C-alpha cells in the first residue's frame, strides 16, 4: 500500500469526525463573542475613529515613556502606542489617543514637549462622536449587506443548496473566528478594520469556490483525488496571499495604522480559512457527494 492510498483510506474513514474540530472551535468563538458582547456592549473594541475623540501622532524618536504619565494626570483615558520601523529599530511615530478634543489635548502635549505641534512634527485627527457612532453602525450594516450579497453570488453560481450553504458557512466561520481572535488579542478596531472584514468575505471564499467547483463540476479523477488536487491548489493560493500580507509585520513595519489593520485582519482570516475550507467545507462536500453518489 502506498502512502497516498493509506492517506486516502484514512480520510475516507475519518472525514466526518474531522468536522468536529472546526465545529467545536466555532462554538467556542461564538460563546466568547457572546460573552464579549455582554461585557462590552459591542462585538469589537472600537478605536477612536469609531468612538469619537482625538488621535495625535508625534513623528520621530521621542521619549514617550516620560510623557505618558504626565498626560495621564490630565486625561485619564489616554492611550499611547508607538510604531517602530523594524529595520532600523527606531520609532517612526508615537500615537496618543484620547476622547478629549484637539483644543484640549494639543496644548497639554505642547506644554510637556516644550515646542508647538505643527504639520511638520505631528498629525492631529479628530472624529466627532456623532459621526463615529454612525460610522460604526453603517459599517456593521455594510458587513451584513456584504455577507448577503456574497451568499447570493454563491447560490447563483452553484445552484445547489448544500454545497452553497457549506461555502457560506465557511465564510461565516472565517469572520467569527477572526473576530474572536482579534478581540482576544485586545486589538482596537478602526473603520478600516471593519472594512477589512468585508474584504475577508470576498477574499477568503475563493478557495471554497475552487474546492466546490472541482468536486462538483469536474468529472475526471476520483472525488478524493479532486479534493486533494483542490487542496494543493488552494493551499498555494492561501500561502501566496499570506506572503503578500505577512511582510507588514516582519519586514516593512513603518506603515499607516489603517493599512496595518487591514493586513492583520486579512492574515488572521486567511489562517482561519485554511481550517474552514479544508476541514469544514471539504468534509461537507465529500459527505454530500457520497450521499448523492458523485464519484
Amino acid at each position, binding site marked *: 500500500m502506498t502512502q497516498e492510498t493509506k492517506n486516502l483510506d484514512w480520510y475516507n474513514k475519518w472525514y466526518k469526525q474531522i468536522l468536529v474540530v472546526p465545529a467545536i472551535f466555532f462554538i467556542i468563538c461564538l460563546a466568547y463573542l457572546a460573552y464579549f458582547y455582554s461585557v462590552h456592549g459591542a462585538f469589537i473594541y472600537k478605536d477612536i475613529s469609531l468612538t469619537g475623540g482625538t488621535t495625535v501622532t508625534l513623528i520621530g524618536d521621542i521619549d514617550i515613556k516620560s510623557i505618558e504619565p504626565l498626560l495621564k494626570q490630565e486625561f485619564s483615558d489616554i492611550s499611547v502606542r508607538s510604531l517602530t520601523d523594524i529595520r532600523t529599530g527606531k520609532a517612526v511615530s508615537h500615537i496618543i489617543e484620547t476622547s478629549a478634543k484637539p483644543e484640549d489635548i494639543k496644548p497639554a502635549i505642547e506644554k510637556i514637549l516644550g515646542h508647538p505641534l505643527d504639520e511638520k512634527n505631528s498629525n492631529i485627527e479628530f472624529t466627532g462622536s456623532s459621526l463615529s457612532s454612525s460610522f460604526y453602525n453603517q459599517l456593521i450594516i455594510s458587513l451584513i449587506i456584504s455577507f448577503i450579497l456574497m451568499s447570493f453570488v454563491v447560490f447563483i453560481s452553484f445552484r445547489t443548496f448544500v454545497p452553497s450553504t457549506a461555502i457560506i458557512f465557511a465564510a461565516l466561520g472565517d469572520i467569527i473566528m477572526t473576530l474572536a481572535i482579534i478581540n482576544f488579542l485586545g486589538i482596537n478596531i478602526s473603520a*478600516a478594520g471593519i472594512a477589512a472584514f*468585508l474584504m475577508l468575505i470576498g477574499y477568503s471564499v475563493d478557495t471554497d469556490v475552487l474546492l466546490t467547483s472541482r468536486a462538483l463540476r469536474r468529472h475526471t479523477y476520483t472525488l478524493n483525488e479532486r479534493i486533494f488536487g483542490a487542496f494543493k491548489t488552494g493551499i498555494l493560493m492561501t500561502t501566496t496571499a499570506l506572503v503578500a500580507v505577512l511582510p507588514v509585520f516582519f519586514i516593512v513595519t513603518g506603515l499607516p495604522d489603517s493599512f496595518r489593520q487591514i493586513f492583520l485582519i486579512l492574515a488572521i482570516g486567511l489562517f482561519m480559512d485554511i481550517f474552514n475550507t479544508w476541514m469544514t467545507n471539504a468534509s461537507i462536500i465529500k459527505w454530500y457527494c457520497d450521499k448523492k453518489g458523485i464519484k
Partner: protein
Amino acid sequence: MKTSSIPMRVWILIIVLICSVIAIAPWGYFEQGVVIRGVDKNSTAFDEGMKTGMIITSINGETVNNFQDYTRVIDSTYPTGNKTGIKFVTRDAEFILFDSEPPKITVANIPKTRIKTGLDLSGGARAIVKAENKSLDSNELSDLISITSNRFNEFGIADISVRPVTDLSGNNFMLIEVAGATTSDLNNLIAEQGKFEAKVGNTTIFIGGLEDITYVARTGEQSGIYSCGAYQGEEVCSFRFTITLSEKAAKKQAATTDLLTIDSTNPEYLSEKLDLYLDDNLVDSLSISKDLKGKETTQIMIQGSGKGATRQDAYVDAQNNMKHLQTILITGSLPYKLEIVKIDTISPVLGKEFLNNIILLGFVVFIGVGLTIFLRYRKLKITIGVLVTMFAEAFITLAVAALIKWNLDATSLAGLIAGIGTGVNDQIVIVDEALSGGADSRSLKEKLKGAFFVILTAFFLIVAAMIPLFWAGAGLLKGFALTTILGVSIGVLITRPAFSEIVRHLVKDK
C-alpha cells in the same frame, strides 16, 4: 496556426499597458522647475497675470529646478522689507514684479507622474462638515459646496477639494481636503460661516450674495484702509469699500427708509441706522443721510475696522476684516450653522515615510510571491509569467486611478495589494488546471474553462463584498473598495485572459 504569432488577448494587454504609461505620464521625472498651484487674487502676481499651472524655470536669472531652489532664491531676494524687483521666467512668459514681500503664490515640485496620493500620504488637512441640527438635501448640499469653494478661492487657498459625501443612511456631508493647510486654517474658514445681514431696525435690507449685491469694489479708490489712530489704549484702523446693490435690494431700502423720521438730535440723519451684522454680531452702524429717505440707492459705502497693539497689527487686522467681509458679500451667506464632525491634519513628513514603505512593501510582496510560485512549480517561465501579470495588473490599476484622478490613500493602496493578491490566486488556478495531466482527459480548452468558472465566481464575490463600502463611513473607505474592484476587474478583463494564452503557449511547448 496562431501559435507562432502573438494572440489577440496578449495584444490587448500590450495595448492597455502602453495606454497606461500614457495615463500615468511619468514625464515629470525629466522636467525641471516648479509649478504654480495657487495665486492670491489680491496680489501683484495675480495682477501681472501669473496663473495656476504655469511652470517657473528661473528667478532673477537663477535656474529653479525644484521647490528647494525656489525657497532659497525667494528667501535671498527679500531679506529686508524693501521694495525689490523680481523676474520670473516661466515656460511661455516672463513676469517682473515690484513688491516689498514675496509674491503671494503657492508653488510645488512638478508632479513626477499623474498618480495622486491621498491626504494621509501627501499631508494636509481634511474636514467633514454638516449643518448643525439640520439635514441637508442634495440641493442645499450643492449650494453649500459651491459657496464654500468660492470662499476658499476668494481666500486664495490652493489645492483644495470640496465634495459631497453621502452615507448609507442618506446623510449628506461636505468633505473638504486642502493640501498643505493646517487644522486651524480650516477650522477658522469653516467656523466663520459668514452670515451677513444689513438691517434697518428689524428689517433686513440686503444679505450677502449675488442676488442682493451685484458688485463689491476691492481695488482702487473705492476700497481700502483710510485712517488709523489710537483709541482707548489700542491702535485702530478703519476700512471702507463700496458695493452696488441690486434693484430689488435698493427698492427695499427705499421702502424702509421712507418710513423713518429725521433724527431729532442729529437732524442731518435719519432716526434709524443701517446696521451691518456678520454672524449675528454687529460689525458697524452706518448713519443714513436724510437726503436718502425713500430714495433707491444702489451705491453703498461699507465701513469697518481692525485693531491691535501696534499700528502695524491694527492695519493687518483691518485688512483681514475687510477681505473677509468682501468675500462674504460676494459669495453669499449660509442660512444655517455648520458643524465640523471630523477634522484631521496629516503631516507630509510622516506621509512620505509611509508612502516609501508601501512602495518597499510592494517590492517585498513581489519577490515573496515570485519565490513561492517558483518553489511550487520549479518553472522559471511560469514564475516570470505570474510576476509579469501581477506587475501589469498593479500598473494598469494605478493608471486607471490616475485617469479618473483618484487620490490614492493608504487604504486604497492596501486594497491594491490585496486585489493583486487575488489576481495571483486566479493565476494559480489557471496554471494548476492547465498542468493537470495524467488521467485528466479534458482538452486544455475545457480545463481553462473550468478555471474561468472559479475565477469569475471569485470576481463577483469580491465585488459583491466590497460594494457596500462605497457608501459606508461617509465615503472615507471608498478608495479601498475602488482599488480592490478596479484591480480584480482589470484582472478578469485584461490580464487573466492574456495570462491564460501565455500558459496555453507554455503548456503546448512542453
